[in-house]
């Protein structure tokens, strides 16, 4: 599975190779990267302090003292400032994580960096995998290891693709024997487990641990999940009544993450790589108007037809550039929810080529449902202040999509004909008029009847 998904990734992590070889691999590539960067130092210094900080952190030699290092201090402060205000970009996360986990300047910057690793949008999975590699090298003190695993649990939903993490499931599992790490590793394994990961050897290991540590809740939870997948391998009886599951370990980052997400919530996503979904999980605040939220781009849950032809299918969620799209055009599989395509221009370009009527129908259903629910089915026209901002954003996105595709959707048309009967003429006028311009041409008699009559 790791091989097929290897579209554009830094060094391969063959799961059968030993961890030391993998570590050596990464350090060699690391020096080549930094050598390349040093050559480009002739370029004028970037204005952005974060960029400068990242550059410094990439290039600093191993073993440079951290104590009393003003330059380091300055860079760390600027990064922290950005992190706490709006979150770090994926590239920044990758660089910072690499710097911290490689322990290039000792342990204290590592802890500080881990504490401020707050992603703005998503976390690149390659960075997490490399960090796990550094974890395997074994030079980190236990408390830092615990902090790192807690961080992975906190940002788990923001990791863009979990398949590579699942590919190194065995490595992650090997940490379960460390007593301090055990609860957190069990939680991480719980999130990563798929049916093929459940092996007799692993079940035996967990049972062994259980006899040593007693019936710890984290062990029992993981075992019960194994039982759901493979009931024949886990034969012990588990208690049917259990208290609430794993504890949340996100305390150092929780409040900062919530603040960042609230701040980013108003911005419209555009041209972000596919496969990312901003989960607006601002604590327990429920979004009343969830029907206008774009669903996240996930691979289709049921892919049935391809298996008989032995063809490797690439889910659209894994494509991250136009070149990849072109290379895999004949292999792409549509996502589980068609509505998620509206969030990315790359996906829309693919949509242009899709010939499947069912796919369009799905998209029309979702779009029509959202439009109807927001504007037609609500009590009195739904023009309340709180909903209008989201409505404006949604319509803007729909307009830009239709403009991009140079064609309107049929459900928009249907919706408009109904809506114009009840429209008061002033609600969201620019957007509605914009939508009107995309209606396909019809004979003038029909237009008269459908649109112009009051």
């Amino acid at each position, binding site marked *: 599975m790791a091989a097929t998904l290897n579209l554009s990734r830094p060094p391969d992590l063959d799961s059968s190779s030993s961890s030391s070889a993998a570590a050596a691999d990464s350090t060699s590539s690391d020096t080549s990267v930094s050598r390349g960067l040093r050559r480009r130092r002739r370029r004028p210094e970037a204005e952005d302090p974060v960029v400068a900080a990242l550059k410094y952190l990439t290039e600093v030699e191993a073993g440079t003292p951290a104590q009393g290092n003003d330059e380091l201090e300055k860079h760390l402060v600027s990064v922290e400032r950005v992190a706490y205000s709006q979150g770090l970009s994926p590239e920044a996360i990758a660089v910072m994580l690499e710097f911290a986990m490689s322990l290039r300047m000792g342990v204290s910057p590592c802890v500080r960096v881990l504490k401020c690793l707050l992603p703005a949008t998503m976390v690149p999975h390659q960075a997490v995998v490399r960090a796990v590699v550094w974890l395997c090298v074994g030079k980190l003190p236990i408390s830092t290891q615990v902090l790192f695993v807690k961080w992975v649990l906190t940002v788990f*939903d923001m990791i863009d693709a979990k398949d590579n993490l699942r590919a190194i499931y065995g490595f992650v599992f090997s940490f379960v024997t460390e007593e301090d790490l055990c609860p957190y590793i069990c939680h991480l394994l*719980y*999130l990563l487990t798929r049916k093929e990961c459940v092996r007799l050897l692993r079940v035996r290991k967990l049972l062994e641990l259980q006899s040593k540590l007693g019936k710890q809740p984290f062990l029992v*939870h993981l075992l*019960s*999940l194994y*039982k*759901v997948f493979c009931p024949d391998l886990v034969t012990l009886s*588990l208690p*049917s*009544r*259990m*208290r*609430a*599951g*794993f*504890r*949340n370990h996100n305390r150092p980052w929780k409040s900062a993450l919530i603040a960042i997400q609230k701040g980013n919530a108003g911005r419209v996503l555009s041209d972000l790589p596919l496969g990312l979904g901003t989960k607006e999980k601002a604590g327990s605040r429920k979004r009343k108007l969830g029907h206008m939220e774009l*669903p996240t781009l*996930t691979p289709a*849950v*049921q892919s*049935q037809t391809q298996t008989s032809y032995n063809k490797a299918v690439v889910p659209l969620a894994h494509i991250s550039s136009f070149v990849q799209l*072109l290379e895999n055009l004949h292999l792409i599989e549509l996502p*589980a*929810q*068609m509505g998620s395509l509206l969030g990315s221009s790359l996906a829309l370009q693919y949509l242009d080529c899709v*010939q499947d009527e*069912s796919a*369009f*129908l*799905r998209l029309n*259903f*979702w779009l*029509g*449902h959202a*439009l*109807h*629910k927001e504007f037609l*089915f609500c009590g009195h026209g739904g023009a309340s202040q709180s909903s209008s901002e989201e409505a404006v954003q949604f319509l803007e996105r729909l307009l830009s999509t239709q403009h*991009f*595709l*140079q*064609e309107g959707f*049929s*459900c928009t*048309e*249907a919706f408009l004909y*109904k809506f114009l009967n009840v429209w008061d003429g002033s609600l969201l006028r620019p957007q509605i008029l914009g939508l*009107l*311009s995309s209606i*396909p*041409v*019809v*004979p*003038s008699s*029909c*237009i008269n009847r*459908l*649109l112009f009559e009051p």
Partner: protein
Amino acid sequence: MSLSTCRCSEALWMRMDPPPTSQPFSTSAVRTPLLAQRRSRSSRQSYRSYVGTASHLGYTPGFTKRRLTTSRLAPRGRTADEVSPAQLALLAREWQLSYVTPLYRFRHGQLKTYARQLAAFVQSEKQQQGGGPVEAGAGMESTLKVSFTLVAGMAQTEADADTVFIQPHKALWSGWLACVGGDPDYMRSLPEDFVCLPLFCRGGAAWLSPLVEAWFCRTFDCCFGPLEINAVSLQWLAALWTNCRAQAGVQPLKLVWSLPVEPPLEVTYAVHPQDAWELWRSVRRPLRERVDEEEDEDEDGSVGIEEVEGFIKGLQSHFYRHFRLELSAGQLTQVSTALGSAKHGGRLKISNGSYMVTTLTLLTECALLKMPV
């Protein structure tokens, strides 16, 4: 290969010169570029156009007045024996109604797989939410089992899909998806990958409903929305349930109106079942006499919208005579008889197996009306 689309100007398409009336529409369709044609292949006539005017593009404006079924079949009430055990689970519980857009790639043969996936999904979601509510009875299940069962015998036409009943074990929640007597033309117009089960009824613990809906949305790319029962449908239900004299004669017919005064006034109007039956019979008989070729018995045959309206008008005028309150100024919000109860907010209870199919046919129609495409 460049996919750069030509950015034409922002001119409104409507301002283009309309084609001369003598030119038939078909030739202008030929001239549209291939791209537009391909996508407009997927543009389907809305559901209303099947029942509205006959125009090719017929998007009938206005969706309030029901122009659909003006007469419904009111079959002879079945005895309790004829209700299968699976259907018994649908009775005597209050359900909250929603409508569902058609499900993509839902296979009735894979119910066991779906049950497992749903159980795993619910569990993982609860973990992520940090344990969720700790309920007094059930607590947090370590292995939540869900069962999907087919409820046979509800499909009326060959286009109907079988009802699916969802029940997690040991959790006080259940739900079912149904399509009873749905419009066969609409069903046939859907591509084969889609299964139309537009009516979704759920009841029980409130925390499980959003999770189940989220799983459905994710797996079958469908959307859920609340289904209200409008006043006309409530009137239909009142008439149909009264029509079933044997079973309905146990409890009074109760109707609740809400009148738009300050403060809002709710009027509960309870009619003795015998009186209701007399009124209903008297409304039906004059109309029945006009159609002499009906050989059905009194309780059988179809019920027309005029009879329903006559029935309700009779009740309202009786009320007016006694209390000088014109009920038609308000809105009918609730109907309940011995056969069941229905509320405007979308709550339904079926107490008796008779007329279950007719009731569900009406509700399936309401759900299909809400389909966006």
